[in-house]
């Protein structure tokens, strides 16, 4: 888990997304325990309140749940929730950017589509 301290995206958001990535990758399985606020804060060298904010964001979205006295756990169905959320953002985060970059490099849209086909073939 690595945070980009120069990105203008708030740290707690980056942390939440990094945990979501780990869930998607299977590093955190459903019903398994996530690192505690303390562990995250110490490892990433950030203020525990920030770490807590990131975790609480995921709790609010029901991706994580709190077991009192024990810690934070990955909810059942978390993967699905994250995938759904990401899919909705896919267009903005990737497609729009892809087209912008292509335009910058003067690559016509048809060539982009051809590239996608080429990639799909692999």
């Amino acid at each position, binding site marked *: 888990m690595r945070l980009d301290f120069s990105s203008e995206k708030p740290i707690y958001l980056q942390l939440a997304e990094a945990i979501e990535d780990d869930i998607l990758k299977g590093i955190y399985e459903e019903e398994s325990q996530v690192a505690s606020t*303390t562990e995250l804060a110490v490892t990433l*060298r950030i*203020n*525990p309140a920030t770490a807590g904010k990131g975790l609480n964001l995921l709790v609010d979205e029901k991706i994580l749940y709190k077991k009192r006295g024990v810690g934070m756990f990955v909810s059942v169905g978390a993967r699905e929730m994250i995938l759904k959320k990401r899919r909705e953002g896919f267009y903005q985060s990737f497609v729009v950017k892809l087209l912008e970059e292509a335009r910058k490099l003067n690559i016509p849209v048809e060539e982009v589509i051809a590239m996608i086909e080429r990639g799909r073939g692999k």
Partner: protein
Amino acid sequence: MSTIAIKGICKDYGTTRALDNIDLEIEPDKIYGLLGRNGAGKTTLLNLITNRIFPTAGEIAIDGESVVENDRALSKVFYMTEANLYPPGLRVREVLGWSKEFYPGFDMPYALWLCEQFGLKTGKRVKELSTGYGSIMKAIVALASNAPIVVFDEPVLGLDANHRQMFYRALIANYSQHPKTIIISSHLIEEIAEVLEEVIIIKDGSIVLKQSVEELLGQAYTVSGEAAQVDSYLAGRKFAGGEELGKFKAVTVLGVLTEGDRALAQKLDVELSRVELQKLFISLTNS
């Protein structure tokens, strides 16, 4: 959970006014950064909070009780100073032992564990310690004291990069497991930026800013790229300070980022990134 209330504090040295009408509320259990240029008044303020020196006017109260010559209020504070105040002939383990006498909540096993981690030999005498290890010893006492309010004045003075990392880790872990009010005064702003929750900036004896780091950094950002493009982006915006290297330019913009801004940036092919606390600090404290 202890609060510090600073009201109307002034401190004069002869005809020089070192602190002018300082009003501050330090809320409990947060990590505060006290930042300021050399001579701005940071150490003076910290000395006043801890009864090391006396105010010319105003008062400072911990949990409602004035700190002046008040044992009960002061027992809630541990102050790690730049200067060494421990008897040079005392051994490290004796310093720890006496600290436990005066701070009943002192965690000795934890302190000894930290000594081991940092490689601080407890048999050494205070006068035999290098600058770095002197700081390490004092930092360990501060962390192990378990006082509700812990003040650090330049805690990483003389520490090598490894030890600095270890210190920050230990500080974060300690704070996370045993919440307390922490005030850190340091010149290494970028190193502690992510550790701080709130930042207080002193300039020429007055407070110029007291805000949460998140809010503060959310109110500014950096735009960088080819100079002409950056200038286009800057049109009509407030900005403060920047750097130029050939055709490359990076400027600190004052304002909150909107989607429109991001779109514009992409169009102009300039990059938007987080503003560094240190850069903000420098522009805020340059005369």
